[in-house]
């Protein structure tokens, strides 16, 4: 186990807590699944319990729930206008899920759900498919006006349309990799500097003195990661709002 302790990749390993194998596929309940459950229970519990008093004058915790609500509601309203409100629960769920998963992952020994590409890809594809389905259901063929920006010379049109289609299709990739890579890189960096502290302090008194530098770095990085955790959740949801706006108003470039 000792090499694993300081191995920066160790934290991303999945451990099967309850092995479940169906039809040759691995559906085991892993540490990732456990932290998904923790994320959801924490978020749902917080939102539900802090608002249970329904205070006309909110307390501190109720204020947090209300601020979250209004924050996402105004973001969605600004991005999509009044028609977007029926996507509010979806957007809110994504934001809170990603944010809490990011924040929970910051605790030492805790698993970061969003540091696995498949999770962020699933969320990004969910948004992508939703945009496609809603766009085509609402506008039919008119949805493909999204790829034909107005005011482009006819000669350039094929090139521009090709670029637009490629950029549309690569959306889920950039959308998911941005979140995944930020969380992964942040946690690896944290672990590397924290690992320096452990390795240096095993070299006696001088090593311990030298370990102060990476320790300070770890503290600073933790603060940075706190910011990144919030920022990446915000960016992820902001992009989701913009993509949903494309589905609702494909002509409105």
């Amino acid at each position, binding site marked *: *186990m000792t*090499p*694993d302790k300081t*191995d920066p*990749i160790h934290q*991303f*390993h*999945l*451990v*099967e807590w309850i*092995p*479940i194998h169906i039809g040759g*596929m*691995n*559906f*085991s*309940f*892993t540490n*990732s*699944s456990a932290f*998904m*459950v923790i*994320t*959801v229970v924490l*978020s*749902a519990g917080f*939102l*539900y319990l802090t*608002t249970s008093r*329904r*205070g*006309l004058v*909110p307390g501190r915790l*109720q204020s947090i*729930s*209300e601020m979250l*609500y*209004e924050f996402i509601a105004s973001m969605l309203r600004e991005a999509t206008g009044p028609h977007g409100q029926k996507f*509010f*629960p*979806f957007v*809110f*769920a994504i934001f*809170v*899920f990603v944010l809490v998963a990011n924040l929970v992952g910051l605790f030492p020994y805790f698993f970061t*759900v969003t*540091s*696995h*590409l*498949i*999770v962020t890809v*699933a*969320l990004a594809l969910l948004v992508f498919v939703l945009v496609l389905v809603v766009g085509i259901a609402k506008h039919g063929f008119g949805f493909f006006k999204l790829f034909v920006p107005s005011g482009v010379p006819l000669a350039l049109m094929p090139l521009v349309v090709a670029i637009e289609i490629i950029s549309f299709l690569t959306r889920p990739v950039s959308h998911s990799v941005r979140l*995944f890579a930020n969380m*992964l890189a942040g946690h690896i960096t944290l672990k590397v500097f924290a690992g320096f502290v452990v390795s240096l302090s095993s070299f006696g008194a001088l090593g311990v003195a030298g370990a102060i530098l990476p320790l300070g770095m770890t503290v600073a990085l933790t603060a940075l990661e706190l910011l990144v955790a919030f920022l990446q959740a915000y960016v992820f949801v902001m992009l989701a709002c913009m993509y949903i706006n494309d589905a609702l108003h494909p002509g409105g470039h």
Partner: protein
Amino acid sequence: MFVTNAFAQDSTAAQQGGGEAVHTTTEAGHGGAEVFPPFDPTHFPSQLLWLAITFGLFYLFLKRAALPRIGNILEVRRDRIAQDLDQAARMKDEADAAVAAYEQELAEARRKANTIGQDARDKAKAAAEAERRKVEDKLNGDLAAAEERIASIKRTAMKDVDQIASDTASAIIQQLLGTRVDGKDVAAAVKSSAR
């Protein structure tokens, strides 16, 4: 570097289990521990399934319970604030109206007080005038009566003077002539001489 390493041997190492130097201590039960864990496809179904379950339940919970409740709280508060503002505006209007009514009443009262004062002054003046006139009338009456009495006294006195004159004249004549003269003649004589 690590990633590409992991990818390069992805296909082979996944089945063999334990070929990499870094991961000699493979965890038991892990087929592909050598692969960089976030890219290890063995756990993709598990992660997708549990993400679907947890996120799906979370979404349903938010949509059915949590978000309607928060929305309701915010709406109630917004309504309440609007209502309170309306009430405050209405109360201010009422207060303004009351002030205006008060001012008007005050002006009216002042005007009424003025008229009452004026009336009282006029009445007092009239009463004084009437009193004065009455006293004057009475005095005038008294004066007239007094004058009348003086005149009557004078008249009687005058009448007595005639009598006295004729009496004296008849007495003188008697003395002088030694005869008695008719009183009527004496009186006529006195009267004519007095004229």
